[in-house]
């Protein structure tokens, strides 16, 4: 059972060296799953490195990394495939874990003709309906009441589905956080509020974001438990999420999970942390790297070997390279696709605008070839 912790209490299962802490109990996870979880964290790490490099080379318009926060993405392991994920822009691992392909991921970054969202949004704004991964929005916090509504909707429909919503500590300052949490409390909606407290909102440190002793303590304002965990400890993430999911499915309502982690990279490829952040701060967090901690745990369990990781990395790298080459070679979506999906059926004014543009496009203009 999840209980509201003292604000300074922090739940951990693994220490920084990947040992199970005295008194803690590691969740039962089959070996194949352990490997799959590790592989997905590795995938996030590797693809972030690659794509950021491509962005620096000017081959991608924009990118955002999750380096150091990969363990938080794996909360979805504790959920059912039918459960819904309302992500922010910094949890691609949750999509990969559910089967989002590297190919689709990279095509979205390019916004090319094979992009599942048809080049409509900036890089890292994925939407993957078939795995119940909801469309990512830039406006911070907007997904929070939506997740509450989805969870309430499932309950109304008499289903057991629940929703998990990811957001950063900066998002807790938005009005949307407040109304989403408050509606969930009143409705006892089966929703999990998962806050990645990574210390920074672009240049704004947590201390300027809120004066509360923790993020977890905010749950008390809505009448349900909040718990603070080590967000770089994948076992704590999975264990706590599983408990919160059980509560939700038992009709006991929502839980707020504050996962303490750290944004080791820049906010985005447009950001330059050296202007506002001591370069040593990220370094200190490397020693509690979520992947390395998990690796050591797996090694002790006899699940991890250097050879296995080498093979996995190589396979991932190869897939990334192949899919990137393909994505880079794929052209832009057709001009006329710009007018689709505004409405289910195209109304007269959009039809006219589309026809007008296509007439123009036929006339010579540098803008119309990609």
């Amino acid at each position, binding site marked *: 059972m999840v209980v509201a912790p003292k604000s300074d209490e922090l739940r951990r299962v693994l220490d920084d060296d990947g040992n199970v802490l005295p008194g803690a109990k590691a969740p039962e996870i089959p070996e194949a799953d352990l490997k799959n979880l590790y592989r997905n964290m590795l995938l996030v790490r590797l693809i972030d490195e690659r794509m950021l490099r491509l962005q620096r080379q000017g081959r991608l318009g924009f990118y955002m990394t999750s380096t150091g926060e990969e363990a938080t993405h794996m909360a979805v392991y504790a959920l059912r495939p039918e459960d819904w994920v309302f992500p922010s822009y910094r949890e691609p691992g949750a999509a990969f874990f559910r089967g989002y392909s590297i190919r689709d991921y990279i095509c979205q970054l390019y916004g090319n003709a094979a992009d599942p969202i048809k080049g409509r949004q900036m890089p890292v704004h994925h939407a993957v309906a078939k795995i119940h991964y909801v*469309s990512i929005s830039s406006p911070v916090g907007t997904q929070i009441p939506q997740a509450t509504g989805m969870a309430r909707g499932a309950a109304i429909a008499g289903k057991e589905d629940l929703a998990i919503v990811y957001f950063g500590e900066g998002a807790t300052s938005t009005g949307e956080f407040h109304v989403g949490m408050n509606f969930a409390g009143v409705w006892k909606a089966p929703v999990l509020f998962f806050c990645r407290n990574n210390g920074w909102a672009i240049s704004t440190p947590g201390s300027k974001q809120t004066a509360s002793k923790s993020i977890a303590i905010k749950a008390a304002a809505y009448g349900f438990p909040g718990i603070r965990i080590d967000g770089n400890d994948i076992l704590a993430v999975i264990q706590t999420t599983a408990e919160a999911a059980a509560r939700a499915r038992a009709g006991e309502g929502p839980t707020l999970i504050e996962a303490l982690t750290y944004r080791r990279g820049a906010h985005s490829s447009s950001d330059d942390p050296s202007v506002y952040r001591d370069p040593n701060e990220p370094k200190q967090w490397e020693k509690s790297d979520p992947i390395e901690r998990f690796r050591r745990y797996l090694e002790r369990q006899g699940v991890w070997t250097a050879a296995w990781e080498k093979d996995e990395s190589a396979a991932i790298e190869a897939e990334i390279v192949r899919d990137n080459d393909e994505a880079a070679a794929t052209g832009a979506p057709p001009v006329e696709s710009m007018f689709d999906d505004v409405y289910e059926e195209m109304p007269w004014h959009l039809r006219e605008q589309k026809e007008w543009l296509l007439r123009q496009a036929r006339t010579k203009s540098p803008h119309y070839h990609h």
Partner: protein
Amino acid sequence: MPVMNIIQAVNDALKLEMRRDKRVVVLGEDVGKFGGVFRATSGLYEEFGPDRVMDTPLAEAGIVGTAIGMALYGLRPVPEIQFADFIYPAFDQIVNELAKFRYRSGGQYPAPVVIRTPCGGGIRGGHYHSQSPEAYFAHTPGLKVVMPSNPIDAKGLLLASIRQNDPVLFMEPKRVYRAARGDVPEGDFEIPLGQAKVVREGQKITLVAWSAMVHTAQEAADKAAADGVDVEVIDLRTIVPFDVETLVASVKKTGRCVIAQEAPKTCGFGAELVATICERAMEWLEAPIERVCGFDTPFPYTLEHEYMPNADRIVGALKRVLEW
């Protein structure tokens, strides 16, 4: 056919559709036991229970935000915003989220939410119980904006709105909620979105209005008729997408046009109508189009009748345009 007012017609449509389709749910402030401050949802809580008729906390962003989530799950939420003047806390959820969900997901996530809200002045409501904010939504791609003026349209358009798959701002003319009465077919029928209605045929000049202004326009047309001026009155009914054929055909026929809009003049929906007509029927126009609008001030309390367009003011405009 039973005679209903607009409140009864809306209530009838909601009951009908909630019986027909289990996915339809209603949520908002005071919509439950109280049946809404205008009583549009009365009886729903008793018939459909607290899971399908939800009183919410006082937060419009929460009402619309959670409705979006319900729609993504496959329900058909029909949230109520108690007064259109209070819709702005939900503005981000409406214009950045609801309006863009289908598009930004490449068509994977349609969000069919029908937001009902009473709009317009004339009830001594002052700044915050009188506004007509339709232009904000008309300027937001991805939204449809429906503004009926009478009971039969209210019922038929609401049923059609709930059954189609795009987000709809369904704005109800509160000034005539009870005053506008008329025959309304029992049971199921739809009035398709995007079709205007010529509520009075005429040859000399086209008078365009929507929502409560339609009644003021008809009053003006009657007065003009008394002076022998033959006015064609168009009730747009839907403003996005609006019925350009009916509008342009009428103006081509009459060669003259006046637009009656309750909202403040500058950048109101009437401006779009003028621009569209000029783009398509300029050479048929025998006079400039005149807009009779609310003034560019916040909606006043004591002087609301001086503020709102009235029949006299519209008649004046009709005369000026005819004599131009």
